[in-house]
């Protein structure tokens, strides 16, 4: 049965004096927060700080004990929960694709329940799979377990977008992925965000992710909102020690000048190595099995470059060899300065580079991991 759309766009989401108690403990206490239409607001804080409870109160999965949550001025508690939730996309860390449905059925479930005809549902599903870089003809009939974690997360995003919701709620959507995959999906998500221009509330515990994606960041601790503002507000004007601790990026870079690439590189995991003689379509299967989104191509023991899953997925008839399509990547020596290496990588928008020790492979330099090691 079709449900009437509650709102076409978000002007504002206002949480006023919202509290939720479990037993004698506050999960969220006296929260005042206004989310502007069209912004991406990050909720960040230690676990148990009330981020997820806040998110779940917005779509009525949890009802507040006191206070009100208004979307465009309407109190969510007055709205039908099913209608409300069909107007919001929802993405979570463990994805929760239904294992008994194909990718197409998973994405098309709510449209089907809304009474869309098969043709319209199918067109919408295909459009969205394309949008998240999963060619529909290859993926629509597959089951979730036949997909890698990263691919499943893309399907999760497609499912959340299927009703074209003006609001997206995302609870650590990239949290379970390995660092390289996470960075890759973040980059793609930024592209998507530009295209769709919706209001997004996004939970993370990763401050890098928060800075990379967020328009504004709300820091929560101990069931309370500590500070909310643009990244630079938090860096230059933290209200207390905790905020300073969470956002203090200066400290991370303090010793950077004295460090070499060698100190902060990661060993090259064999799973990233691909042979130049493999064709692009086979490579997609291999990468899926290994759960990697990026591969380092070697040809006769020599580095040939890198390939990324998103680009390979378009392979169809020509089946090019990896050695012919591998893109050049930055190569550093063991003694190069980390600061120089990172700024070079940042300038060209790359997040992974090779480290060579003469002719032999020394390891990989992954920008996110470097930052993590410095914290």
């Amino acid at each position, binding site marked *: 049965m079709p449900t009437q759309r509650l709102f076409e766009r978000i002007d504002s989401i206002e949480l006023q004096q919202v509290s939720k108690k479990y037993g004698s403990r506050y999960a969220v206490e006296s929260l005042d927060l206004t989310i502007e239409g069209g912004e991406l607001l990050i909720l960040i804080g230690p676990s148990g700080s009330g981020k997820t409870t806040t998110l779940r109160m917005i*779509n009525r*999965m949890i009802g507040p004990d006191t206070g009100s949550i208004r979307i465009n001025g309407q109190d969510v508690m007055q709205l039908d*929960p*099913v*209608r*409300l*939730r*069909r*107007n919001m996309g*929802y993405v*979570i860390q*463990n*994805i*929760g694709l*239904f*294992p*008994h*449905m194909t990718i197409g059925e998973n994405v098309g*479930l*709510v449209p089907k*329940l809304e009474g869309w005809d098969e043709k319209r549902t199918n067109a919408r599903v295909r459009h969205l799979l394309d949008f998240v870089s999963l060619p529909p003809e290859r993926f629509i009939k597959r*089951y*979730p*377990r036949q997909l890698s*974690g990263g691919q*499943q997360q893309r399907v999760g995003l497609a*499912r*959340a977008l299927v009703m074209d919701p003006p609001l997206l*709620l995302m609870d650590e959507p990239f949290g*379970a992925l390995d660092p390289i995959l996470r960075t890759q999906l973040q980059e793609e998500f930024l592209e998507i965000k530009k295209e769709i221009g919706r209001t997004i509330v996004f939970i993370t515990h990763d401050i890098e992710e928060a800075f990379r994606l967020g328009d504004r960041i709300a820091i929560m601790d101990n069931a309370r909102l500590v500070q909310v503002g643009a990244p630079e507000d938090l860096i230059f004007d933290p209200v207390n020690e905790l905020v300073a601790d969470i956002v203090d990026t200066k400290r991370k870079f303090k010793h950077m000048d004295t460090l070499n690439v060698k100190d902060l590189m990661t060993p090259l995991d064999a799973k990233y190595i691909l042979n130049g003689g493999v064709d692009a379509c086979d490579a997609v299967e291999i990468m899926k099995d290994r*759960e990697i989104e990026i591969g380092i191509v070697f040809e006769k023991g020599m580095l040939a470059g890198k390939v990324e899953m998103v680009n390979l997925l378009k392979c169809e008839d020509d089946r090019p060899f990896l050695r012919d399509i591998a893109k050049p990547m930055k190569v550093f020596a063991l003694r190069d300065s980390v600061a120089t290496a990172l700024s070079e990588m940042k300038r060209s928008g790359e997040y992974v580079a090779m480290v060579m020790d003469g002719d032999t492979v020394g390891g990989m330099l992954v920008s996110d991991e470097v930052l993590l090691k410095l914290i």
Partner: protein
Amino acid sequence: MIENFHEIMALWDKHLLTMRTIEHLEMFSIALTISVIIGVSVGVIIYIRPGIASPVLNFLNILETIPDLALLVILLPLLRLGTGPTIAASVIYSILPIARNTYTGLKGVDSKYIYVAEAIGLSPRDILLKVRIPMSLPLIAGGIRIALVFTMGVVTLGGLVAAGGLGTVLQNGIQLYEKDAILLAGLWTGILAVILDLGAGRIEKKLYKRYGTWQPQK
């Protein structure tokens, strides 16, 4: 005893084993179909009203301990001789495994799927029909497989209350002490039951594979 293939075929024809097998499978299919309909319904009902789950399952458990022949016999005054009491007794035995597995399956669906289903706006009815029931299919199939074995057992007893089927051949064989006939009919009944059980086992395994859950790596 039995010398060769021709003798077996002669014995087969003499005891009308083709017809008896058809009778047997007919009773079996009717009984199992009814059991599945009632069993799944009971499972869903006690899932929706959890207050009655425990008394209902306890009652069905007690029925399960009753000797099958005794159950068949006490149904005779109500249902007369023949296929009626045989099918009824089969169904009475088979409700428990199907209902219990259906109930366990519906209750046991990983809460993360239910959580997601709610979050993307499925109504409680949609969640039951689109998520809980399909995800319980492997367990429901396991229950049906147990019921299949029970049903084969009771339908074979039907021969003793004039219901026809392979039990009739066993009964006549034992009464007339025709060793060849007993052995042939006994083995054939056993093989038939094992084949059906193995077939059901394969379906069950397939369902597990098809509906098996996938967990993201931590």
